């Protein structure tokens, strides 16, 4: 693990004694970690979880096809929710920075409400309430609407931070050229804002991917639901959940890596947007 300059500065270039202590610490901690891994493997062994009956089906192509279908379901919900949030977030941000106070109040209230409500509660509501009113909602939308609601509230703040990061000179130049506020926003501010926020938008996709796992509740066919089906078929809990968890981690790591790459390429840092105390962003 590479150290940052601050972390490196925490320790002096070691003398012989410090180097020896670090070596001892390295050996001891490596042993402790090895013991931990050994203990975990031992637990698997003792409980018979290493037996081939729990693992053999991973050699079957159709099992991987089924897991792949779950992943496609997850990504379809995530991209759908992400696309909606891109648009709704923009609208909420415009509302929040509007010149008309009532519009500002409404947008702020909507943002606070979406951000403060658990996605899971919203999903239960989508699951139970429309049915009570005799409406049919597909499981896809039961997942996508709540997930996109939360993401919209967060993206509204991301966009706002992006607009604030556009240099004032740019905004003033647009106005002094005689552009109307709307023209100024569309032609001068928005293009720059999008360049600034793209890496941050991509990092938010991690949250969206994780939230789609709530599809489990309404049996929308995503990773967790398909995992459940596999478990029912092969009565193999631990291996299936381990594999699915690993897939989530790898997908989200890939998204983060992509965001970092974008951030370097576009020379736009990933914004730390504070959605709880947003006023602090401007300071």
């Amino acid at each position: 693990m590479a150290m940052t300059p601050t972390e490196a500065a925490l320790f002096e270039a070691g003398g012989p004694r410090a180097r020896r202590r670090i070596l001892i610490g390295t050996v001891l901690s490596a042993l402790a970690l090895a013991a931990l891994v050994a203990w975990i493997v031992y637990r698997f062994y003792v409980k018979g979880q290493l037996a081939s009956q729990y693992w053999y089906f991973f050699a079957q192509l159709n099992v991987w096809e089924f897991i792949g279908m779950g992943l496609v379901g997850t990504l379809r919900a995530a991209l759908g929710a992400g696309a909606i949030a891109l648009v709704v977030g923009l609208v909420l941000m415009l509302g929040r920075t509007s010149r008309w106070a009532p519009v500002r109040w409404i947008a702020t209230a909507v943002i606070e409400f979406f951000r403060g409500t658990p996605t899971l509660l919203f999903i239960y509501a989508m699951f139970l309430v429309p049915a009570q009113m005799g409406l049919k909602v597909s499981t896809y939308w039961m997942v996508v609407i709540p997930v996109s609601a939360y993401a919209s509230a967060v993206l509204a703040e991301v966009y706002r931070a992006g607009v604030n990061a556009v240099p004032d000179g740019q905004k003033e130049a647009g106005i002094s050229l005689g552009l109307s506020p709307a023209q100024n926003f569309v032609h001068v501010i928005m293009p720059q804002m999008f360049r600034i926020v793209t890496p941050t938008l991509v990092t938010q996709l991690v949250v969206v991917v994780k939230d789609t796992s709530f599809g489990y509740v309404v049996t929308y066919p995503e990773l967790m639901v398909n995992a459940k089906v596999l478990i029912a078929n092969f009565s193999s809990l631990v291996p299936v959940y381990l594999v699915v968890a690993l897939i989530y981690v790898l997908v989200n790591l890939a998204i983060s890596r992509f965001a970092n790459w974008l951030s370097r390429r576009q020379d736009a840092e990933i914004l730390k947007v504070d959605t709880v105390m947003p006023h602090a962003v401007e300071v």
Partner: protein
Amino acid sequence: MIHDFAYLVTNYGQAFVQAYLVSLRIAVLGFVGGFLVAIVLTVARVSPIPPLRSAVTAYVEIFRNMPVLCLLVFIVYALPDLGLVVDYEPAAILTLVLVSSSFACENLRTGINTIDAGQIQAARSLGLGFSQIVGSIVLPQALRAVVQPMVTLALSVMISSSVGSLVPIAHKELTGLVAEINNTEALGVTTFLVAALMYVFTGLLIAFVGRRIERRFALWR
């Protein structure tokens, strides 16, 4: 709707308060536990011992990128196959501790890295030892830099306590209670709205407290 609300308060008012307190308990234990674990993890992560640094990095990447639901389901339904049985509410708390500690560790490390390396070098050239440097230069500044992201994390943990609704906790937490009420009698939007507002106001309260702490301690630079 007003009629529904009156019905709800008379029949379920007490249940709502109790469920809210359970949510709060899960969230507070999840956050505080996560914070404490994160301090230990962060020390290991900035230590000069490579295996510890790598292990903590792996821990953080795993629990930051895994859905809360996936982790809870694993703890509750898969761990017993490995001979580890955790009761439902402790399982929900453990889930939140694992996840929030990984986020808090990341926050603390970012906080440490906001300190310019020159400050530490200056302290060393003045003859301060490692513990003095950490205790009087690094930690006070790192903790202040970290108030904002920690408040955000506290709110996330409160919201995430709703995963408790996925497992049959003895005393239902708020989201579980609302789902249960709507399974037995159709009260429609009202129950959800009441619960949502309870969460939202808790969030606003957390933000308010956070702002006070911030004004008191934060460093602007």
